């Protein structure tokens, strides 16, 4: 079902959503820095940037999340879980690459035997309003990772910015719940044509030049190659690329104790941290930066494909944009495909 939302009705539309849902959207924290946040007023929303620094995964898998609280009385203790989600939620303005990444993490956090209920509850309670990318960046390579600036995969509603209005496509039953919203009018044919034009223009700008075909097989032979010693040189071992990556899902579980009460918390973690696999005995299977940078690349382009036969990269380009040493994963992929000996 295709509808239209005039931009003059945008804020009232958001207000109507906020009456019923917790609304998450990109918010500018400082000039050039934005993250997905729960908003209190419609004017906080800022859709001008292509992608916020932190990915939309944060709405489903927050960087720091309480798993349960506990209270100790004598030798007994009471545990209260915080997995529940009180209110339905909407995430507005997620780009196709971030949404594609969330569907990749779905594979890890779901499962017949064990499901990550914190993630699952948030995922079930959230309606995704995606927004098309009419100005993809030069660092974006989503078309190489079977995504695209107008890919509707994973969205419940999908917006296309027509200039004066948004074209609103309702794609799933969750999306259909919005069909009665009073701010959404019927889309005329010229809106649809304009939407198609914008789509063609954006797709042409994308250069699907990152060669990932057969990278999993290639990496199988390269596990002990000297290539990794060369790749790790410029990496300073910070956690920027993993914290900002929409498909990274590693986390740490720690207890935060006050006197007799406290909470068990999970925080994002990074395989690039030197402590990530350090065992209490002092043994560390990944003792140097070589093993750690290898793990990041292997997990996304070899291990994840082996487990879920999908590459765990959506080509959003954040790790390229924000790396302090300009470590460019497109270059690394090309070098790998050339056998990594160059």
């Amino acid at each position, binding site marked *: 079902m295709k509808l239209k939302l005039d931009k003059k009705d945008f804020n009232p539309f958001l207000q109507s959503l906020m009456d019923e849902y917790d609304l998450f959207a990109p918010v500018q924290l*400082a000039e*050039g*820095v934005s993250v997905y946040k729960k908003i209190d007023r419609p004017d906080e929303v800022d859709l001008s940037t292509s992608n916020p620094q932190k990915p939309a995964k944060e709405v489903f898998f927050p960087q720091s999340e309480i798993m349960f609280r506990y209270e100790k009385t004598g030798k007994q203790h009471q545990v209260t879980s915080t997995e529940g989600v009180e209110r339905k939620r909407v995430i507005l303005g997620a780009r196709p690459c971030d949404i594609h990444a969330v569907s990749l993490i779905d594979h890890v956090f779901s499962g017949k035997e064990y499901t990550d209920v914190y993630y699952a509850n948030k995922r079930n309670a959230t309606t995704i309003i995606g927004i098309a990318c009419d100005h993809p960046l030069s660092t974006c390579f989503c078309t190489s990772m079977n995504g695209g600036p107008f890919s509707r995969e994973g969205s419940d509603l999908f917006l296309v910015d027509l200039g004066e209005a948004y074209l609103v496509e309702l794609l799933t039953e969750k999306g259909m719940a919005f069909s009665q919203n009073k701010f959404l009018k019927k889309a005329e044919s010229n809106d649809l044509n304009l939407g198609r034009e914008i789509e063609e223009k954006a797709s042409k700008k994308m250069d699907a030049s990152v060669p990932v075909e057969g990278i999993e097989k290639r990496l199988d032979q390269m596990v002990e190659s000297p290539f990794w010693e060369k790749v790790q040189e410029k990496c300073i071992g910070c956690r920027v690329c993993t914290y900002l990556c929409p498909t990274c899902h590693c986390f740490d579980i720690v207890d935060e104790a006050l006197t007799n009460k406290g909470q068990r918390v999970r925080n994002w973690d990074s395989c690039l941290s030197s402590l990530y696999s350090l065992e209490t005995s002092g043994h560390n299977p990944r003792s140097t930066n070589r093993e750690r940078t290898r793990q990041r690349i292997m997990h996304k382009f070899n291990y994840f494909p082996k487990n879920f036969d999908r590459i765990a990269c959506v080509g959003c380009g954040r790790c*390229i944009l924000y790396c*302090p040493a300009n470590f460019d994963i497109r270059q690394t992929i090309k070098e790998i495909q050339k056998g990594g000996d160059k």
Partner: protein
Amino acid sequence: MIQEKIRQKAKELLENKTVDLIIGFGEGTLPLRATPLFIRNPEEVDRLIWNSFCENNLATYLHKFSQFKVGLVVKGCDARSIIALSLEKRFKPDQLFLIGVPCQRMVDRRRVKKAVKGEILRAREQGDQIIVEGEDFKTALKRDDYLYPSCQVCTHRTPIKANVVIGDPVEERSLIEAHPEIKEFEKKSPEERWKYFEKESSRCIRCYACREACPMCYCAECFVDSPNPKWIEKGLSPSDIEFYHIVRAYHQTGRCSGCGACERACPMEIRLTYLTQKLNLDVKELFDFETGIDADALPPLSTYETEDKQEFIK
């Protein structure tokens, strides 16, 4: 041209085995960026470049090459970091060959991006201008209006104790009158200053890029990772983040060369140099000490004078 001389020097050092590898800068994969480059064979020296985007402090890589003889391309601030590191016995004396470059002050890529509408696809330097081109624009920007904050106030652009200095020295500024931002900030009330610090650190995502980009942060176990005693938690509690930023900055007292690599590494664009520069000013005022100038003067906090100021002590 500086770039040409760096390449010749690198080729010479590699050919006669004075060093095992050269760490310098190469062409970045994005406009307005250069990237650290590690060269081992002489034929590859032509990949070395020099421009106004060589913003990394390469001294932070030295811990990876402790058993090699390393040739390092250094700006004034990087050279000072190396003197500070040598005072802390971080490498053997003859292990390094410093190729000093009098620095023209580095350009702040983020400020340039914010000065134009639309993505910058190509950029190059021309004289004292930066020419940036996007899909539908081409603009020339005056270089000196877009320098990094730490470079604007830099007082030692010419490397002091480099083995060779490529290019002629540049004029310098004195430390005290060079810090308008700190003077401005100090005029504010304590509430305003705390609000600013609180707001800036509230964006922190604890990725530790500031710690990893800084050559002086090399502790085997950083206090944030210590489980026993556990100083702070690992989550995003504002107070823990402020704790981290206060102590990380304070640990640079009398050790920080003011290069600004911490601020440049931060993905959330958090201001950090206004903390370390304040400590540098205090150390100059209290103990007449500047980091990385005199290779024999002990760092201020590891020594003392019987007549140090003590008016603040009851």
